[in-house]
């Protein structure tokens, strides 16, 4: 078998607003609406044309706000850009076991975790 991971379904509240948030503040691009199987429909977004990995934003229904983890190579720089775009994350960037991360919440309660992964063992030498 020659398999690839292309569409990752993410349950969110109000996929349209999540799409707008991702496009406006993180520079995502919109692909299209999709019906993958009978009951799996949503909005496909991706980071850029060349990145084969795309997210399928699926409506999870009331009270089902989702969490999206988006990797960055410079969390503080992106955090600073978000501040300048008028977004005020509820918290400051935090140092975690995986790296530096900041969480932003949209009006529907969906969370976006901007994560700069850091290889701490590698960094020792």
């Amino acid at each position, binding site marked *: 078998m020659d398999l690839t991971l292309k569409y990752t379904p993410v349950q969110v509240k109000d996929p349209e607003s999540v799409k707008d948030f991702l496009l406006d503040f993180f520079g995502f691009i919109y692909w299209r609406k999709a019906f993958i199987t009978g009951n799996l429909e949503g909005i496909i977004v991706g980071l850029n044309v060349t990145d084969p990995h795309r997210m399928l934003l699926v409506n999870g229904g009331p009270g089902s706000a989702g969490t999206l983890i988006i990797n960055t190579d410079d969390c*503080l720089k992106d955090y600073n850009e978000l501040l300048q775009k008028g977004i005020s994350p509820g918290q400051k960037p935090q140092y975690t076991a995986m790296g530096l991360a900041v969480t932003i919440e949209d009006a529907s309660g969906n969370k976006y975790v901007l994560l700069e992964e850091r290889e*701490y063992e590698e960094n020792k030498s």
Partner: protein
Amino acid sequence: MRTVKILQNQNRIFSEISSDVSYPKQGSDFSMRMVFSGNENYTIGTRNLKIYPDSFLVLNEGTSFSRRIYSDVPVHTLSVSFAPQFLKDFHRSQRSSDRTLLDDPFATWQNDVPNFLETLYPLSGDLKFNMLHLKKHIENNVDNDMLYNEYMHHSLALYYRVYNQEVVQKSKKLDFLNSQTKIEILKRLAIAKDYILSNYNRPISLADISQQACLSVNHLLRTFKQAFSCSPHQYLIKVRLQRAQYLLKNSTNSVNEIVDLVGFECPSSFIRLFKGTYNMTPGNYRVAN
């Protein structure tokens, strides 16, 4: 090539690439100084220190020093200095309750900012990642005070964390009741540690280290072990192995050349110690990295 960024609040960032340069007597605000390749020599009073990529030097406001780079390879240095008001404000935010900070947000910290221990600290983990980002932004000539100050704030917060590990926690390990004695012993042990870190590639004896630190050999052995959980000799071996690891990864020197460069007397004992510490031979380590 030298880049200096002076922010509106007088925080400063200096980045330089050089292989032969000398700066006679200088002074600055509280600063953190590091290199990302090669090494840089500092003279502070009678102390001679060398900064390598695995450590950074902290100097307090007003300390006078001279520094010199003389190297076969270009040395990339970075130093960040903090305006006294920025440092005081940061220190107040660390020491005061949220209630106090809300009630009187612009009060000036009345107490002095601590005189930090002027020594070499390990440059690793988040602090190293942040400094590498800062270096990249300076090199790319990014003009954004807000971004730089965000990095300065984080660098200071991470330094406080390192200070806690390297000074506060280590002083707690010292078996003395009098706090002044603890501080004085720790200062002298820091001189001993810095001497090892700066001269690891030369044959150094316990007598040399004890002379530098102004501690008798027995006093040095006992207190060094309390603070660093190893003897000065074990610490020296650890430094030599770490620096050999760095060279294996970042240079094209042969294993035999590295043995000489880091101060081991023979390749066989180096290979045995390396394998015992990292569970692989130097050759395998180089291939894996």
